[in-house]
């Protein structure tokens, strides 16, 4: 061995970003081949959080699976709820009353805001700023209080039912929502001054982890990850569901596809969600919150799918029924898995500190990957 190869052998080592993480990503394990400060190859090891949700769907009547949907992506549970319930409704041609649809939209968008706030705090914590997470959680507490009033739970909501939602909203909740929306618009100023204009943050996230549109398409990345690369694709606009066509909102995009762009996209998405919520609360129609649905619904034979826009991307459920109440197969598409699969290619040659920034910017919820 020559001297230089010996140096390479000593300088190169394997680092285990173990399943236990101080950064709040969940149980993600990545084996990194390092050359000094640079990551030479990344090998994600998944499955530490596998809870066999899809198997559970095959082993019980379809109504009993509803709580599972919330537990897959716990940070943004209502879109998963929405997807499953809408899938059953689509398969059985069940119409949902307008009031219920509006309530679904309001709660889903509130959930999206809560999820993005959680992401914001965790992302900045990864970068070393200890304060914004507490500001973000302050706002998030307000959202969770509202959701608790309306749905009954703070985190793993099980609010939607086939044919509508489980309970109506009351005046107090509507007041809380209005107060929250007013307050949240002003909070963006604080985040702007503290974070967006902070030069250290900009230096750590600009030009870091650039994802080009064709790369995002290749891996099937969706959600803010795709939109930050400049591709204006949003399920709410391109495969509209529920009453989203009735609302006026923009698709948030960024141009460069770096971590900073993904940050900007999520902030803008929060603002658009606030707009949707205001419009929905204003125009909330009267009426029942749940359609009359037969007690036992058997799933017809055949397959069907439904897609919604979750906080992390395109959540799609594919159901195969066989004439009984128990699904033959339920396939859950996890947007986080598609987003994460980029990292093997994206992370080659990246600096270790930048890898943490990129992982943070992808907004990973590992239980959703592992299901």
């Amino acid at each position: 061995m020559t001297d230089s190869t010996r140096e390479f052998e000593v300088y190169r080592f394997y680092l285990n970003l173990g399943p236990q993480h101080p950064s709040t990503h969940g149980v993600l394990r990545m084996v990194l081949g390092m050359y000094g400060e640079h990551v030479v190859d990344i090998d994600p090891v998944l499955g530490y959080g596998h809870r066999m949700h899809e198997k559970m769907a095959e082993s019980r009547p379809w109504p009993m699976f509803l709580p599972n949907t919330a537990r897959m992506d716990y940070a943004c549970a209502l879109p998963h709820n929405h997807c499953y319930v809408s899938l059953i409704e689509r398969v059985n041609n069940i119409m949902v009353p307008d009031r219920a649809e509006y309530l679904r939209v309001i709660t889903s968008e509130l959930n999206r805001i809560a999820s993005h706030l959680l992401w914001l705090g965790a992302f900045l914590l990864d970068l070393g700023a200890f304060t914004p997470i507490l500001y973000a959680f302050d706002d998030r507490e307000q959202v969770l209080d509202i959701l608790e009033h309306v749905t009954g739970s703070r985190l793993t909501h099980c609010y939607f039912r086939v044919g509508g939602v489980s309970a109506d909203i009351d005046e107090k909740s509507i007041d809380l929502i209005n107060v929250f929306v007013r307050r949240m618009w002003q909070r963006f100023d604080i985040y702007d001054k503290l974070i967006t204009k902070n030069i250290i943050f900009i230096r750590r996230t600009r030009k870091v982890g650039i994802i080009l549109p064709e790369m995002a398409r290749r891996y099937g990345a969706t959600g803010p990850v795709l939109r930050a690369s400049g591709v204006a694709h949003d399920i709410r606009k391109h495969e509209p569901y529920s009453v989203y066509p009735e609302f006026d909102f923009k698709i948030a995009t960024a141009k460069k596809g770096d971590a900073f762009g993904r940050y900007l996209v999520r902030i803008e998405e929060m603002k658009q969600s606030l707009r949707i919520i205001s419009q929905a609360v204003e125009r909330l129609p009267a009426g029942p919150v749940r359609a009359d649905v037969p007690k036992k619904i058997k799933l017809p034979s055949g397959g069907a799918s439904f897609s919604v826009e979750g906080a992390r991307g395109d959540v799609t459920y594919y159901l195969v029924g066989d004439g009984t109440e128990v699904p033959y197969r339920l396939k859950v598409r996890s947007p986080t898995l598609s987003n994460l699969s980029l990292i093997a290619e994206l992370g080659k040659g990246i600096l270790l500190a930048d890898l943490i920034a990129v992982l943070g910017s992808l907004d990973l919820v590992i239980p959703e990957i592992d299901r």
Partner: protein
Amino acid sequence: MESDVFTNAETVRLVMALVLVFGFVFVNATVMTYLERKLAARFQGRLGPMEIGFQGILQVPVDGIKLLAKQLMVPSDASGFLFRLAPLIAFVPVSLPLLIIPFGPKLQVLDLDVGLLFILSMAAFNTVAVFVAGWSSNNKYAMFGALRSVAQNISYEIPILLSLLAVALIVNSFSMQQIVFAQQSCWFILVQPIAFLIYFISGLAETNRAPFDLPEAESELTAGYHTEYSGMGFSMFFIAEYTNMFIVCSIATVLFFGGWRGVPLPFGDYTHALWFLGKVYFLMFVMIWCRWTFPRVRFDQLMNLAWKYLIPFSLLNLLITAAVVSL
């Protein structure tokens, strides 16, 4: 008797001063820890320690007792002697500069002619301590973190030296007391604002405080250099860090903010000490403020900052100062 051999009275005075110095170090660490936790809490919109004692004042002594009671663990493959030595290398040299810091016109233990150089050389021991700690832990990741810290410390020592030299040039002396005396007409912050800025930023990096705390927060990715330490060993590093912060802020106060100078207050002879401590603690408040506001600077950006910006600017500052002084 030669003038540089201590008399008996001098020796006794020195020993008493050393005891007081180490006492002060512990008191300072206690106060600083409490301040840091309370201020961090307030910056983050929460309250901080409230349960133990009035407004949580007894929290830190209680934590100290807990740390004392912890089992001191030495990793089995570690070099035992070096492992136990490293906290001492961190702790003792960084406390000694307290001997020559002037708390008042007559409140100074020792007025060395080369006071400033003495302080800087004592501060350099911190680098050695970090390296010894990382090496003797026999932990790949601790070593990695220690290496980063050493690189950071070495790089930032140069801007510190250059910016302080500018002030020393103006005063024509390294003696701390002389520097305070020379600020009779105006504080040097007005004369050397750039030097202060460079010094303060480099001071943050020397003490491994955010936004330059990558070696410590290595615990995100790998282990920091003091991971294998438990109980009192860890708290030695901690106290050393706070003492280092105190020294850095004291130097800044003495050199840029007029030391113990201030408007006369009705506290008699202790006015000067109060002014001094007030200024030092204000600067430490700014350091705490910085920590809880900014994200971490990436390591290569950190090195870039030192070598490409701070050193050239402090050199330029020094040259201009030298030119002006020689006129």
